């Protein structure tokens, strides 16, 4: 990597915030004494993160402003309370993830919103048939989706992640008893990786990949309109759909009124592309996804967990934001 470490402002290069010790401490209290005991303390801990993370506050404020302007809903404009609320929601989300992996949050407690019956396709591919792609997002709780697919259905699910950002949190997951998830670290789509993924699809395995975070070094992005402004989104999921010739489904897991609902929807059925139209096809798929994502943001406005300036071009990110 040519650029100095201190200048890296990409989310993936961002050191996981605060202290691992504090997270570990919080997780331990949650485990030993329960979430109710933790509740007042959680405010203090989250306030520490909130107060010390200027860039995070700025990013959330920006997101809330865009969401409010785009939707025309004035009540969504950022206030101190709503920005703090988003930090709180993230802390809750992390604790829920620990609950999922330790089995405290079970499949029965999660509602399924699946009008097109994507679930039965998931189940079918266990025995025979090809796998498909699930595009997930950092809106809502990623891990509930993953956990439900793995634990509830026993579907072989490969989760593609961008490099080492998962570090500390994976250690916590390990301590919470989770060793099953197959994480595949991806920094770029190379030949060997695509061949491996293609074989997995043929075996009936599914691939989960986030559709809302651009890869390292700003590689392979596409500019889309998201909440009324131009943002960079990854090409990865859409390239994979075209290359592997497999259908794509969207998965969102949102917590509304204290309850999780997993929303499953088919997204790309016709995954063929013409060589000359490839860029245009990727653009169309990415834009359509951004539009779906924007709609889902309105369902759970505080669960947008991308705590970095989202509308900034990845290559031109500078130091000033923090």
């Amino acid at each position, binding site marked *: 990597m040519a650029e100095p470490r201190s200048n890296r402002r990409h989310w993936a290069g961002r050191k996981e915030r605060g202290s691992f010790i504090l997270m570990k401490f919080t997780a331990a209290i949650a485990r030993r004494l329960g979430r109710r005991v933790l509740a007042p303390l959680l405010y203090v801990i989250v306030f520490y993160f909130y107060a010390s993370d200027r860039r995070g506050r700025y990013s959330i404020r920006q997101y809330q402003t865009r969401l409010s302007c785009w939707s025309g809903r004035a009540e969504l404009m950022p206030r101190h309370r709503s920005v703090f609320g988003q930090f709180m929601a993230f802390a809750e989300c992390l604790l829920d993830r620990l609950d999922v992996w330790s089995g405290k949050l079970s499949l029965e407690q999660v509602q399924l919103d699946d009008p097109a019956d994507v679930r039965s396709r998931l189940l079918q591919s266990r025995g025979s048939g090809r796998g498909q792609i699930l595009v997930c997002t950092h809106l809502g709780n990623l891990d509930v989706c993953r956990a439900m697919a793995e634990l509830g259905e026993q579907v072989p699910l490969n989760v593609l992640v961008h490099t080492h950002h998962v570090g500390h949190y994976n250690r916590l997951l390990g301590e919470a008893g989770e060793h099953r998830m197959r994480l595949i670290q991806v920094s770029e*789509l*190379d*030949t*060997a*990786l*695509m*061949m491996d993924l*293609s*074989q997995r699809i043929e075996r009936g395995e599914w691939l989960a990949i986030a559709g809302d975070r651009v890869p390292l070094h700003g590689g392979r992005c596409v500019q889309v309109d998201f909440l009324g402004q131009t943002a960079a989104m990854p090409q990865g999921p859409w*390239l994979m759909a075209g*290359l*592997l010739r497999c259908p794509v489904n969207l998965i969102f897991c949102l917590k509304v009124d204290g309850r999780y609902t997993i929303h499953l929807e088919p997204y790309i059925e016709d995954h063929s592309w*013409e*060589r000359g139209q*490839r860029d245009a096809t990727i653009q169309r798929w990415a834009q359509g996804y951004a539009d779906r994502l924007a709609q889902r943001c309105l369902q759970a406005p505080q669960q947008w967990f991308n705590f970095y300036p989202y509308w900034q071009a990845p290559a031109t990110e500078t130091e000033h934001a923090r």
Partner: protein
Amino acid sequence: MNDLQKDIAQLIIDTLSLEDIEASEITPALPLFGEGLGLDSIDALELALALQKRYDIQIASDSRDARQHFANVESLAAFVEAQRTACAS
């Protein structure tokens, strides 16, 4: 141009829908990328997947290595041949 080379040239045309050229025009030494046939990195991935299906080959996770195999039809044919021998033995 041997049979395997012809076969691969045809596979390239079919996979990438290059309708305006004939298999015989893709000579063994013609560079597939850049100034030769002008393929890009996504074409390379499409091609790799098609080769994998057709000849059941594997490419180790060393991208520099892969780039050499994909230089032209000749190197691709040699690579497929080598993989077959490795599998047979």
